[in-house]
């Protein structure tokens, strides 16, 4: 049984095909997944959501940055990982310590990262593409 079984995972990803791919992969691990494409949708889902275990955040959502969602997650102590086409060093310095994966994402790497975040609050090393 996977460490992700029964976990509630929020995926914020504007690219439908990527969100579908992530959802399928995470559901195969037994997680329940909510996918949203925008910052407002993500914030709305947070206010109504049951307790989240972890979140996967695409940084650039059709030109808008996902950081308000990251702030809200941090406030709620929900661990998250950034997935981005940008380099890790380009991210907002407020989140310099956050986990970061560079696209395209290798699914085993993402699964290991999420497992680390859920079990220890920290991503399992080695995880960050630099």
């Amino acid at each position, binding site marked *: 049984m996977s460490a992700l079984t029964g976990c509630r995972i929020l995926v914020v990803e504007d690219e439908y095909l990527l*969100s579908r791919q992530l959802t399928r992969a995470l559901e195969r691990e037994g997680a329940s997944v909510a996918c949203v*494409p925008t910052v407002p949708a993500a914030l709305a889902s947070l206010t109504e959501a049951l307790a989240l275990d972890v979140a996967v955040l695409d940084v650039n959502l059709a030109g808008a940055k996902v950081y308000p969602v990251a702030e809200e997650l941090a406030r709620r102590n929900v661990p998250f990982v950034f997935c981005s*086409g940008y380099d890790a060093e380009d991210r907002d310095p407020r989140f310099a310590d956050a986990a970061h994966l560079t696209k395209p994402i290798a699914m085993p790497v993402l699964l290991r990262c999420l497992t680390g975040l859920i079990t220890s609050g920290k991503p399992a090393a080695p995880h960050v593409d630099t």
Partner: protein
Amino acid sequence: MLAGLAVRSDLLVSAKLTNYGSGMALLSCKSTPASDSFDWSQTPLGPREQWSASLRQAIDGALGVGEGDAPSPAATLDALFTAAPLGLAIWDRNFRFVRVNDSLAEMNGLSPEEHVGRLPQELLPDIAELDKMVGQWREILRTGEPWLDVEVQGGTPAAPDQQRNWTEHFFPIRSGEEIVGIGAVVEETTERRRIEAAFRASEARFREFAEASSDVLWLRNTETNEFEFLSLSLRKLFGVEPGSGDGHGAAEFNWLSAIVPEDRDAALAALAGVRQGRRVTHDFRTRIPGSGKVRVLKNTAFPLRDPDGRIRRIGGIAQDVTEERDTAQRLQTLIGELQHRTRNLMGVVQAVADSTLAASGSLGEFEVAFGARVAALSRVQNLLSRLEGLERIGFDELLRTELNAFCALPQDDRRVSITGPEEVPLRSGGIQTLALALHELITNATKYGALSQPDARLAINWQIVSASADAQPRLQVQWVESGVAMPSGAGQERAGHHDAGRAHGGQGRELIEHAVPYQLDATVDFALTPDGVHCTILLPISQTWMAKAA
């Protein structure tokens, strides 16, 4: 030395002249206790340390301070005449040479003996304005006043083709109260003038370079802290007026106040480094008076030392690198965006491969469907790569590109009609997904729908609609297939493709019905009617275009 020459010794001895300027002060220095306590450096003889031994002996003798027995005044004057590094001459009242020393004889290209008894006009006809000079000599005889700092120009037999220069001092020679002749001290200045002229030309060339350069050249005195030079480009930039003096009015230019406050400390630190002898390159931003625009200057400053090694000046070259920095910044952003787009696209291709594989019954099926989808992605990349700045892809352009890939443009396929305004700009986010959805609609039509049967029709219409006066206008696209004959069973089979999710029928429908609403904030109404597929898509359009249209 005097042998054979008709020289009146009283004339020589009486050449203890008074007050004809700095030139021959030595002869009136009887009251000076010692030659070495007098500042000789201001006289044409120069500092005492540089005198030859014979000159020193001669002067000391004349002043009566030499060692041992003082030579006679006449002998002293002889020695002086011989040893002086300057040309010396004496004329009688008729302006005939009485005596010249070796230095002057050499300048004139004649021996000292050849001078005696002759007029300057006879010996030196190529000296310019000789008559005027002789006229002035008469004034000396008449008034007893010396004539100093006379610039003389011309040629002599020593070098007939060469124009030379001298600075000469003329003074009366007295015997008692009577003026018995004229003396002269002659210094050749040809070389000095040549050097000065070359220096001026070089200076002028430097200024021309500096003024023509778009870089700012500057020179600052470390003691007065004033600018000694500030080239035109900066003067223009800061409206510094060329004022009095060499500094072009730049002396009082307050460079520090022109620098934006945040960069002042670093600029001062850089300058301090130069004062300590380092060459420093640093950037600072500066605000242009009037416009208030901020420019970025890259400044290279270096110490300029005097022969003792002390730093007397700081030189600098400042280059306006504003555009360069902006361009670099833009390029960096573009590279970042390109990288982002590429990585995203790789993710999309990977996802398309995953989902196509999951929906394919065989590798052959996968090959066809995957190849077609990657081709559709390539086409939309092509469209995106042609855009500049804030340009957007028009819906008609995207549609035509996809139809063309299937040879299904109206001019190629009479079953197809398309109607709608041109260049309705699409939001750039999600355009790939919309292209894939159109691709799936056309693929389905080609396989099972209007484009698979000779008598069927496909009409694609689009228009801008507003739900209400306040609502954002949206683009409504209607895809209407008609006259599609559904042989019994075949319709079921086709519906099966869509509904059961078999092969890419199901996957295509997922793209149309789920991906487009998710990613484009669109509503999609897809219906498989007995007449064929009817699909209506309502999607937002680019805000920039709407702002432009407003």
